[in-house]
């Protein structure tokens, strides 16, 4: 046990030193494949991270593979085939935890591999609790929250501002769109069925609690369109197919602010989740050195704050928050659109990684059987 830790630490020190002191020394050049989600999110990463990096390192070319959605399955397949073609992969924290469990992601030592904050705070403190698992390098905090059609709010009624309004078909008639998986939906259902926020996961761990949540979802079941892709809800809202629907807050931001759709945000009971990098295991040394160099650069305080100029996701470092400025094209202040903004985060849930790692298979099976009924 000591051995592997020493080995990890020494290689980390070595790599970090290589990244710092001998930039360009024995680091590979050429084409690197980074994996991300495509769309506006990948564009924000290109603008904030890879464009400045390749300006400083003209011998490096970065190509994107838009496979983050299936990153775990594909990495597993690559590992079985013994043919790793990715250098750096952007995944949500739950997937990072899973890749770490499967030995497909490299363990990291934040203080050795990541830049300290400008005031010298080590990375492990600057990222704090967001360093989920042993392999995950966080970039942003996003949230799954609700958007609603402002022109479909019934006359004389307040716009929805409470998670339980989603379950209130009388006051707010119309279709809803929810993700076709248990995560988040079960929590919201329990919250609106009288379970206190701090008890949600204790209740959800029991068979009775799971049934209770499904029973609550049953009450709106006929009015729900279940989505599989993050782009579905913005489309359904834009076409007036649904009155209210859940999706990632950045998608709603771009529908509201960039496309001027008549959509309002409902931040109540938003579920925070994290997205970040993992480094796949089995990279050759020179490529690993280059990837580490990039990660050191791309996750420093300024870079994370820069990303927020292109998309409304909160930077994962504490020290980045004060540096968040205005939208790169529209020039509006980004802070009020961040899920982490105090005004938006009055009632929020943090994705429970440990719980869902254990219960996802079981509850997912029950949820899907319920859906198919």
């Amino acid at each position, binding site marked *: 046990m000591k051995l592997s830790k020493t080995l990890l630490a020494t290689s980390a020190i070595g790599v970090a030193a290589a990244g710092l002191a001998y930039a360009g020394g024995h680091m590979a050049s050429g084409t690197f494949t980074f994996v991300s989600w495509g769309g506006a999110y990948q564009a924000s990463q290109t603008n904030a991270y890879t464009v400045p990096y390749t300006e400083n390192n003209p011998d490096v070319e970065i190509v994107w593979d838009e496979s983050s959605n299936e990153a775990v399955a594909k990495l597993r397949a690559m590992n079985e085939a013994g043919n790793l073609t990715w250098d750096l992969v952007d995944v949500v924290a739950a997937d990072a935890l899973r890749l770490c469990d499967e030995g497909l992601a490299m363990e990291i030592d934040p203080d050795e591999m990541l830049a300290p904050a400008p005031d010298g705070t080590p990375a492990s403190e600057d990222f704090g609790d967001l360093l989920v698992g042993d392999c995950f390098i966080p970039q942003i905090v996003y949230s799954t929250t609700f958007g609603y059609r402002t022109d479909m709010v019934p006359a004389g009624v307040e716009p929805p501002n409470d998670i339980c309004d989603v379950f209130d078909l009388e006051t707010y008639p119309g279709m809803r769109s929810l993700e076709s998986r248990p995560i988040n939906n079960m929590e919201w259902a329990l919250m609106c069925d009288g379970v206190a926020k701090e008890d949600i996961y204790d209740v959800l761990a029991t068979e009775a609690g799971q049934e209770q949540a499904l029973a609550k979802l049953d009450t709106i079941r006929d009015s729900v369109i*279940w989505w599989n892709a993050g782009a579905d809800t913005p489309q359904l809202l834009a076409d007036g197919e649904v009155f209210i629907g859940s999706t990632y807050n950045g998608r709603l931001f771009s529908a509201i602010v960039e496309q001027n759709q008549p959509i309002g945000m409902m931040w109540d009971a938003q579920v925070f989740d994290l997205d970040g990098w993992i480094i796949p295991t089995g990279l050759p040394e020179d490529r690993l050195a280059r990837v580490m160099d990039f990660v050191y650069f791309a996750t420093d305080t300024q870079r994370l704050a820069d990303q927020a100029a292109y998309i409304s996701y909160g930077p994962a470092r504490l020290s980045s928050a004060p540096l968040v400025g205005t939208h790169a094209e529209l020039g509006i202040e980004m802070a009020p659109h961040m899920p982490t903004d105090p005004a938006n985060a009055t009632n929020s849930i943090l994705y429970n990684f440990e719980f869902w790692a254990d219960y996802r298979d079981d509850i997912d099976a029950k949820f899907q*059987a319920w859906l198919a009924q």
Partner: protein
Amino acid sequence: MTDTTTSGPMLSADGVPLKTSLARALRRQKLRALILIAPLLAFVVLTFVVPIGSMLFRSVENQIVSGTLPKTIEALETWEGQDGTLPDQEVFQALFFDMFRAAEAKEHTKLGSRLNYERTGFSSVFRTTGRSLDDIGEPFQDWLEDADPAFAEGLTWYEIFSGTGGEDLIEERRAIWANMVGEGFAGDIGFTLSGEMAQLLPQTAAAYSDWAIYTAIVEDDVVAEEDPWEAVYAALALDLARDGAASALAAYSGAGAAPIANALAALPSLPEIDFRAAFIAENDGWGDTGNWQTLKIYSPDYTAGYFLNAIDMEKGLDGATARPESQQIYVKLFIRTMIMSLIITGSCILLGYPVAWLLANLPVRSANVLMILVLLPFWTSLLVRTSAWKVLLQQQGVINDILVWLGFVDDANRLILMNNSTGTIIAMTHILLPFMILPLYSVMKTIPPSYLRAAKSLGATNWTAFWRVYFPQSIPGIGAGSILVFILAIGYYITPEIVGGTDGVFISNRIAHHISSSLNWGLAAALGSILLVLVLALYWLYDRIVGIDNVKLGG
């Protein structure tokens, strides 16, 4: 003359027996034919037979359990488990050493994910325990180092266990590593085990060998220079505390005799060895007999568990039982997939038959235009066509708008045409229509129009002429089209995913979910295998009823 022809073999012109010469010529021909088809054969084997074979294999394969925890599974064999008692200390002891090895190689969490499919919580049981195994071993390390500081030196250990005669044990441990990690653990490890130690201190020799193999092969370090794992200290404590260990070791005078004697003398201060309590303290999942039952049920190298899951059953200690009704899904989805594929095939026949008839009977010029209209969607991306259907079918979509504008439908009660089975049937019928029209057309093209004319001139009505003369001749086309459409439909995935909602999804959507999202590849493989068998069975049935000779794709 007659004598020579009957007694001797018939000879060809060059004097070789005709039979041999013929066989040679045939062989050469066969070989040439084989070489000609060799690329295709290799392609089919590589891209078709091998993947399907490996998929079938994955649906029963379960070596990960016994590969990761070999000794635990062995020790668990005698445990019955029905009466709610926990396994005894021996099992937990084996678990400690198995887990330690697995945790070093980062294999324990893989097993946790595997078992989590069968029972909730295994994922974190393995993850958290893997982190704290050092703590379980540490008291023994402290105790030994207190008894004699020489135990803190890696070299002391190396000297004690170096020797000859322990090759068998080393090989056994290599095999255990290779079974777990799935790679060769061959090669020199810079250490040979003493046979005497393998006798005197069996547990420690095994644990030390495990560590030595790992250190030399995985870490690429020198065995003599490194400090062993906490597990090795724990093993030595176990060995020393064993009955009769002291008397057996009394005669030992080899390397490290002094520290061993010191440790024996310190035995009274040895911390209590209770792996069971230690494991339960780290994670109470180990105190749950249900978890142990699952581990035992899934301990064989091959399991029917995935297949049982795929038909809504579960494996228990006493055999298979049906899952609670609220968790049944797959049988329902299989049936739904079959029925909806049949409906889609039926609507393709209804819609495709007239079109194919027109194609075959119109003048060439207009038939060509029609043919392009049939083929145009065929050349468009599947995803584009399905998304286009979304625009048409949704409640605020084109079809509903037109119906409301025409006054057929009230604005408040727009039709729900998608996110249900209707959407899947409409979109898939359209997408699969060319697969029905084209074989129908090629068969109809060969039916001479004179037959219909002859029937009519003999007094048949239009309907009789069609039904008694034309239709029977077009059946081979219907057969070919139906097989194509049905088999394509049964494996469809993208269209139901986009327009199917919850009651319009197929079994393939679940398979895709298990491949890319839940990562339960064994279950996905079992579901896929069942689907394959179902298709083959239906094909066989079709052959029995319709006859596969009656299927024509043309001419």
